[in-house]
């Protein structure tokens, strides 16, 4: 599974949620950078860290929301995979998100089984490319 080790970035303003994902992702053997709570911060760190997968909450701590942050990150790093998370299930929000490097759209509360499936899928595709 070493070959499938990915760099994961979690953008989530709820600390507990971020911690839960980080813990879980780590148990699966991936590398997690420190969770980020604000959109601007996410854009900056994404440029620095160049993650494989980003868990992106829609609503963030600052005025840049998840969709906006994702767009800016994707502009810099078109191959990044973004898993959106939200308690929002508005169709237009979901639609918007799906257009920007979307690998999944998780409904909160999160289902860890779904997250595991998604990460396995990403890992395989990375391996194939390598």
């Amino acid at each position, binding site marked *: 599974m070493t070959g499938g080790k990915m760099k994961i970035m979690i953008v989530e303003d*709820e600390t507990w949620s971020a911690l*839960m994902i980080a*813990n879980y992702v780590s148990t699966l053997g991936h590398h997690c950078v420190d969770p980020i709570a604000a959109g601007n911060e996410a854009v900056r760190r994404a440029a620095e860290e160049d993650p494989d997968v980003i868990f992106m909450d829609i609503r963030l701590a600052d005025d840049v929301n998840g969709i906006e942050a994702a767009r800016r990150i994707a502009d810099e790093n078109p191959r990044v995979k973004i898993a959106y998370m939200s*308690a929002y299930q508005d169709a237009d929000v979901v639609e918007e998100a799906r257009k920007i490097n979307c690998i999944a759209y998780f409904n*909160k*509360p999160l*289902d860890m089984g779904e997250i595991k499936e998604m990460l396995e899928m990403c890992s395989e595709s990375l391996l194939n490319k390598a």
Partner: protein
Amino acid sequence: MTEVYGKTILLVEDDRSTAYIEKLILENHDFKVIIASTGEEAVDATLTHNEINLVLMDIDLGDGMDGTAAATAILAVRDIPVIFLSSHAEREIVEKTEGITSYGYILKNSGEAVLMAGIRMAFRLFEARSLERKKDTDLAITRDFNNMIIDMSPAFIVAIDPFGKTMMMNRSMLDALGYSFGEVAGKDYVSMIVPERDREELAAVFELIIRDREKTVNVNRILAKDGRELICEWHGIPVFKEGIYNFFIGVGLDITERVKAERESREHSGLRERLFASSKMPIIVMDALTYEYIECNAAAVEIYGFDSAADIIGKTPLDFSAQFQYDGMPSHEKAKNYIAEALSKGFVKFEWKHRRPDGSEWDAEVHLMRFNNNGNNYLQFTLIDISDRKKTERALVESEMLHASIINCTSDLIWSVDSSEFRIISYNVALKDYFNIRGIKFEIGSLPEDLLPAEVASIWREYYSRALRDKTFSVEYTSPVTGKILHFHFNTLKREGSEFGISVFGKDITEKKLAEVELESAKKKYQQILENSPVGIFQRKLQSNEHENEYTFFNGSLVEQFECSSKEEFLKNYSRVSDRWAELENYEKFKKELVENKKVSGWEIKTVLKTGKTKWFLMFAYLEETVSLINGFTIDITEIKTLERALKESEKEILISRERVSASLREKEALLKELYHRTKNNMQVMCAMISIQSMKFHDNDVLEAFKDLEFRIRSMALVHQKLYQSSDLSNINFCEYITDLADLMKKSFSVNSKYISIDLAVEQIMVTIDVAIPCGLILNELFSNSFKYAFSKEAGGTIRLSARIKGNDIIKFEYSDDGRGLPHGFEVSRDGKMGLQSIVSIVKNQLQGSIDIRSNNGFECDFSFNKSLYKARLP
């Protein structure tokens, strides 16, 4: 009968419509008609139109020359019959025609028959007069209509009433006797005029006349005022009205001179031959056997219309006679009778209708005498041309009858009294009837005291005296006997400048008075209705000058509407248009529409009162165009207008507040959504906390407990998601929720659909959060239970869930799996884990429903509850 058809009549009438109607009537009788509307036009027309045969002259012709003046002017240049027309029967109007040769006086609207009779009369009269004029008989016609024809006759004419009183005596007779009419009117004819020795004989003649109703001829003497005696040949004519003897007319010829001449002739026999030849009296001698004329004088030749005696000698009477005589008998038979009578009696006198060689007929009085010469019988006769007298006689009778019929047919009371004692000198039938009905003896010569109670008679004497003093006056008189209201008009009667009597015209105006009273009361009633109407009503002139408009009427309501305390105050403050119309351009529009359509309905007018108060009126108006008057009706709609405005205002406010409500509602919705979102997010945080917390433990039971906890939270979070997505933010679609929940459970338990299938049959039910959350928790437990314990990994199985509405909002769930079922003797309360116990508790306590858990080839659980249980909690 005089031929009148095709003659031309000049109709002088200032009223065009009357003229038109009369023209039609005349043309209908084959007259040609020329119309003149003024006196001046009439005079010009008679000068330029020679074909005019007669003038119908309206007396009242407006401003210019009046009818009598026009007639005088016409008669000065042309000899033409003129008939006066007037709508007034007053004697003063009739007297206007005095001094004018009048051929008749006709009341307007007397009817076609009277008009035609009058015209025919006038033509006949005119012919008769024309003949008179030929003989240079200058007859001054200066009497009023009644006496005119009579007075112009050279013959004596006298009318005597059935009581023997003199009703009328003509000018020539009065002159001959030396009396004035006043002296003889109403006096006993016989005792005054007839010499004592002839009275008995005359009384017999009257009796005979009345009995036989025939004309008589007799010779008797009459006595002049100065005692002279005149010998007259009298032709008596009884006049009957409706079969009853009315009066007697005597037409007399003064034969005093003739009788004297005859006497002298007898006395101077030597002169006979010469007298015979030179006599102006036509004398003819006839053979009594052969009827041949054997001798005649020059006067006879002339009267017969021949040139010499030779044309007459040898002829018989039939050669000079009309075919028939007056009574319709053939002349030859009639002649035989008279000759036989003359031969037997020696003398006979009769009237004879002659014929001249040119065919024209003439009338003669024949005195036929027998004489004997040398044993042979001869007849000698004299002729007197009485054509004129006959014509006059006929015209007189007709005129008199026409006049009498007009006067006697009216219900008006007409009479005259003398000026000295106020004795009745003439009267009409209506007056006579008035007294006769009351059993009062009424006759010519009656004094007021004879007819009326003393006190009433004295009133009448005062009236008569006043009439003599004032010449003419009118009085309204309420009869003390009948209670009727009468209008009397008094006029003095003049002859030759001196008053000899008073004429009275009385009209019953009781009905008219009553009608007037009724009209007045009706007027009052309508005025009251108008005055008391709640609608403002007015009438005013429509004028171009808006600053002055005069009201011809306005009612109290209008005054009240303008909040004035009196009509004067209203007129003072609101008489100008600008006082009443706050918007003058609105008035201009109103006026335009009124003039165009003649009426205006429901026009709104804004008025600012002098007090500064604004009022609104609704006006209805129509235009009486002919008199340029506006009739208007106004209703005060100020209150309605105020309400209308208030209503508009409040409508606006409602709109604004509705806007506010919906804005606030939108805000609330957003807040609610946010709340649901946050709740759900918090649940995520809770799940994360549990998840992180569980990492510290490695005991499977503990981990499972954490897992169960997480599932329960997630099933609740799903409710919030559904609520957040639902359209009304309070109800969620139960079917969608259960489907999603089942999916979530399957995923969470990593259930392989190959082995375990979930068969859902959930009806479309909308439920509130209060129902959805407990249900979600129940189903979460049931699914967990089945996934954990029901099936072996290899065999798998099926879960069935149905939810349907039963009756009144009862939802019934039926859950089953075909797994292992419950252990034998299992009791939930005793043996059940926390999960199952919580199910029972939730159904019974929270949902107040019923639940049944059992084993039946697997696990079965039915539960039902009322979904509206918590409805009351919702706003």
